[in-house]
């Protein structure tokens, strides 16, 4: 916030303005969310139906994104894949961030051995490369959607914890927190009503960044064949099953990748262009 020296010269509602890039990226994110919810009504062909006699068909009026390795409509499969990619990632992000932020605030408020032990442990967990962690868990437990959600959540909890703790430590030194503590408020009230409202903006931005990481990791695992299992397919799995079309330059290979990229880039841009007031609302 050091740059923002002249808020008084801005028009009314300073800092709540949303620029064009922000609107555009918000539109892309909302569109993918709508697709994930409405997928069954939007798909032009059945997801599992073999509709083309040719495989790896090119783009055409009937099949806008071509057909896959079995002759299924690629557009329908991508629209349906949005459910898995967006749904699993969102669930994992919410679990990771709720756990991480709650623990982070609790550690900052409690301090002492609780803080020290938790920080050490989660830092150690954080130094396992994320893809490797996914590989090891899938090897041990097998891959299913609940396992994927939990694994992704565990992998990204430490980062969220560290971020929230750093913010909460600053708020924790404020007078109003001291007053509330002297008043005899419990831990739940302190973190829910005193700390959280003052760090909520940056925490939201962090949720977005972690969502991008999770989408990328999920896609990577599915691409390796260790994520979402057939016959269900998220975008990473769609790339994997159609990788054989690469030598022919089939649209079925690149289209799911572009879907992933459009989502992750849009979320990143949305966070970068969030109104100042929301992004920097800390203390």
């Amino acid at each position, binding site marked *: 916030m050091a740059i923002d020296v002249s808020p008084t010269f801005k028009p009314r509602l300073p800092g709540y303005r949303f620029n064009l890039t922000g609107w555009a990226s918000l539109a892309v994110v909302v569109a993918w969310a709508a697709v994930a919810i409405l997928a069954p009504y939007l798909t032009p062909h059945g997801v599992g139906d073999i509709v083309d006699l040719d495989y790896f068909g090119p783009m055409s009026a009937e099949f806008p994104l071509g057909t896959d390795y079995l002759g299924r409509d690629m557009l329908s499969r991508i629209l349906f894949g949005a459910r898995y990619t967006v749904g699993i990632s969102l669930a994992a992000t919410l679990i990771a961030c709720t756990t991480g932020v709650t623990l982070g605030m609790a550690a900052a408020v409690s301090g002492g051995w609780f803080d020290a032990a938790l920080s050490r442990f989660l830092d150690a967990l954080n130094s396992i490369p994320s893809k490797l962690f996914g590989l090891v868990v899938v*090897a041990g437990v097998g891959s299913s959607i609940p396992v994927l959600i939990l694994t992704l959540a565990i992998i990204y909890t430490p980062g969220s914890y560290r971020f929230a703790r750093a913010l909460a430590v600053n708020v924790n030194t404020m007078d109003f927190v001291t007053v509330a503590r002297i008043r005899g408020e419990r831990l739940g009230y302190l973190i829910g009503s005193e700390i959280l409202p003052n760090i909520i903006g940056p925490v939201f931005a962090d949720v977005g960044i972690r969502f991008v990481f999770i989408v990328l990791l999920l896609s990577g695992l599915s691409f390796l064949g260790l994520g979402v299992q057939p016959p269900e397919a998220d975008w*990473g799995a769609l790339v994997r099953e159609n990788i054989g079309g690469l030598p022919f330059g089939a649209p079925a290979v690149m289209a799911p990748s572009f879907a992933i990229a459009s989502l992750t880039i849009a979320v990143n841009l949305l966070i970068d262009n969030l109104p100042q007031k929301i992004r920097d609302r800390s203390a």
Partner: protein
Amino acid sequence: MNTHLLSLLGGRLLVALFTLFVVSFVVFGATQILPGDVAEVLLGQAATPEAVAGLRSAMHLDDPAILRFFYWLGGLATGDLGTSYANNMPIAQLIGGRLKSSLQLAAATALFSVPIALALGITSAMLRGTLYDRAVTTATITVISVPEFMVATAGVLIFAVWLKWLPSLSIARNVDSFGELIRIYAMPVFTLSFVISAQMIRMTRAAVVEALNTPYVEMARLKGASRTRIVLRHALPNALGPIVNAVALSLSYLLGGVIIVETIFNYPGIAKLMVDAVSTRDLPLIQSCAMIFCFVYLLLITTADIIAILSNPKLR
């Protein structure tokens, strides 16, 4: 060297050792969650109960999990990695050659990407705000936002399918000439470089920009030094610590990238070995590969931390 600095470094190494212990616990635990008798799986359905019992005691399977954890940890520490379930070979033997291939790939990538990334990061910091800087920044954000396999497939599509300069997915084993070697390594190295350079460029640019914002750089500008001299003589020496730190950190991203790249290009490295081991559920092999990966990763991030500590003049 004073005692404060030494205690900082010692503390950092202790943290690294503790982390390695927690990591090994997690790796061992994650692969032991699922119920199921390894001895029965290994011997097949026709095995007699006596044979299963014999194998169980030979493999220490009757001991509590915590004891087995320490047996396994002791084995790791003394270089005994155990035996693969899938083909009954000593794991050390399986890993040896693969590790060498992976390290070759990593070394080639580092040699190729570090100079380019540093040059791009430093020049974009020098030309901050120009079209060139914006182009580099946008490109790096884009690369960071897309999955590694997209970079790899796009590369294959452009260089192998459309331009036909390079062989596509499979790697030929017989290397006759230096030209052939370059052609084989080109795609994997190119993809990995792309992935790690993006991080390196961003961090290098940030470090140099910070150094350029200092009073002594302004002083140099006021006394009339040229832009090149300001950057090379005044800003860079002070940004060197953060830059080396950035390089070490970026190299740790190699580990994530290498898993995807070795799989997609069928490169016979340790990451491919591990992904294959996951599909055959060869647990001892997975554990060993995971520990090697975590060890290298910790080595890189600890090195990065130590360089950051050493390069901070306030701590010397």
